[in-house]
């Protein structure tokens, strides 16, 4: 909802420059800086706290089937072998939170992946070839930036169907414009670099230069932005599920909150725990995104230390 704008602006403000080449080990350098940024490290730790339980959901969950209906509704956390209690249908809250993590991560990753592919394609073609192609693509990008996306997503999902695939694709299709803008700005500067000019002079094909050299050298801001888009995707899926528009066949944090909402005054746990899980997940990706953009912007790095 409100999230995607922030990420793009925060990074846009200091459009990233490529890392210094020729350092002993580029990856090692990135890692050192990422850890030094503190934000990135904290984010990574939080993310591991979410990913490990998500992977081992089947082993960790008290109920193998998160939808398994129990005999006793609204057991308090800790009662009768349910560490986080049970909901109004007697389902185990911990199991649902664990399986919900899988869904949230999947939606976030797939949606951000789609947005990255479209954003990189549109932005790099627009920046590299310029001319009328640039004018048209930039206009389209601007249009998609202005359209109220969340409402559009609601309409699409409500009318065309709310299978999980639809949800992921629609979120991806509406969140690429930020990537396209970052990519275009980056390609505009890389295109003028000596090594690209050199390749031109050598007679290398333009499309080949674009895919082999320009894109790999200008993709860093999109990577940083993608972590923010993952977070935004997680929030959007939760919001859709909260409105009853998510996939009803999957355990989802948003849906848990939606179902727990009516009884929140008597039993808080079915809706509070998925909320906390969501905050940790979203925060992890925001922190990692900030850590990455810190690594990728030498200017702020020097002054910040």
């Amino acid at each position, binding site marked *: 909802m409100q999230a995607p704008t*922030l990420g793009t602006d925060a990074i846009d403000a200091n459009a990233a420059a490529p890392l210094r080449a020729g350092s002993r080990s580029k990856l090692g350098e990135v890692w050192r800086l990422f850890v030094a940024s503190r934000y990135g490290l904290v984010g990574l730790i939080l993310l591991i706290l979410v990913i490990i339980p998500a992977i081992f959901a089947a082993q960790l969950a008290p109920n193998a089937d998160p939808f398994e209906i129990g005999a006793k509704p609204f057991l308090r956390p800790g009662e009768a072998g349910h560490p986080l209690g049970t909901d109004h249908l007697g389902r185990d809250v911990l199991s649902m939170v664990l399986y919900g993590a899988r869904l949230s991560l999947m939606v976030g990753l797939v949606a951000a992946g789609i947005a990255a592919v479209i954003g990189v394609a549109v932005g790099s073609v627009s920046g590299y070839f310029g001319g009328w192609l640039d004018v048209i693509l930039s206009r389209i990008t601007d*249009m998609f930036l202005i359209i109220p996306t969340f409402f559009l997503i609601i309409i699409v999902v409500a009318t065309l169907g709310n299978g999980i695939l639809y949800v992921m694709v629609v979120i991806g299709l509406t969140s690429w414009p930020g990537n396209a803008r970052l990519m275009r700005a980056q390609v505009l500067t890389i295109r003028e670099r000596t090594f690209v000019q050199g390749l031109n002079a050598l007679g290398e094909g333009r499309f080949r230069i674009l895919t082999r050299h320009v894109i790999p050298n200008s993709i860093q801001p999109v990577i940083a932005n993608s972590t923010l888009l993952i977070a935004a995707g997680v929030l959007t899926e939760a919001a859709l599920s909260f409105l009853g528009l998510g996939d009803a066949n999957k355990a989802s944090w948003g849906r848990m909150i939606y179902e727990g909402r009516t009884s929140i005054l008597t039993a808080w746990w079915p809706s509070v725990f998925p909320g906390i899980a969501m905050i940790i997940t979203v925060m992890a990706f925001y922190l990692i995104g900030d850590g990455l953009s810190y690594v990728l912007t030498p200017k702020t790095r020097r002054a910040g230390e």
Partner: protein
Amino acid sequence: MGSYIGRQLLTIIPTVLLSIVVNFALLHAAPGDPARIYAGMDTATEEQIAAMRHDLGLDQPLPVQFVNYVKEIAKGNLGNSLAFRQPVRDLILDRMPATLLLTMTSAVIAFGGGTLLGAVAARKQNAATDLGLSFLSYTFFSIPAFWLGLILILVFASGLGWFPTSGMRNVRADYTGWRDWLDVAHHMVLPALTLILVQMPIFYRITRSSVAQQQREDYVTTFRATGIPEPRIFRRYALRNAILPTVTVFGLNLGYVVTGAALVEIIFAWPGIGRLALDAVFRRDYPLLLGIYLMLAVAVSLAILLTDVVYAMLDPRIRLR
């Protein structure tokens, strides 16, 4: 300045048109026949459904329906709601004040508070205040608004009983005048607080990073060298330059907050556009849905246009570019 606004309008008009086309196509591609729904799902005969379809204009070819729709919009007529049997325009205008009151109040307070805290944090980076504020900002930025709303109800409405759980007015008491205003304000505290808390980090972050960036600019170094006192440099120069990006974000955010507020309106049963929009979605009320979407697209575009103009007024470099 006139030509500047003109150029901006050139982007906005096609955008609004595009969003109408997209929505129109989408709604008509959707499964579910509104004529059947409104004639009565099970009891209606084929003749009744056909009559209903004719009444609603749904028997016309799609392009004709579209042209008719755009013509009516130009006249200021958004059509009639299928579900409410009222003009869409009246329905929207009826709900508009509640949404505007809630979103504007929260946006302005969040803007002021977030900017102020961001500036405070940036003055002494990595001090305890900065770290504490940044932690809070990350936390609230990661909280989904609808969940925060529920928690606030749980704690402050049902737990402590300080505020009502939902609604905009106390329906049992028929207040008038200032007593009515007070009642509305009392009902608005929790929904507004929810929106303020989730929006503040946006302004906090952008202000913090842009103030920090300004303080490293060459002109600040020059001022320092000439002996201008630090607080004066900060207030008169660095802060003023740093506010510019915040203004842009305020405008962009204004557009999104209307949609974002929809979920919060639902939680608190606040009688605004958000609720209306969801009703329209679930009841397949095409004209109402299109009307609300159109209104949103126009509102977002205008907010962005207004921001650009304010920005150009504040920063002559943009205008002259």
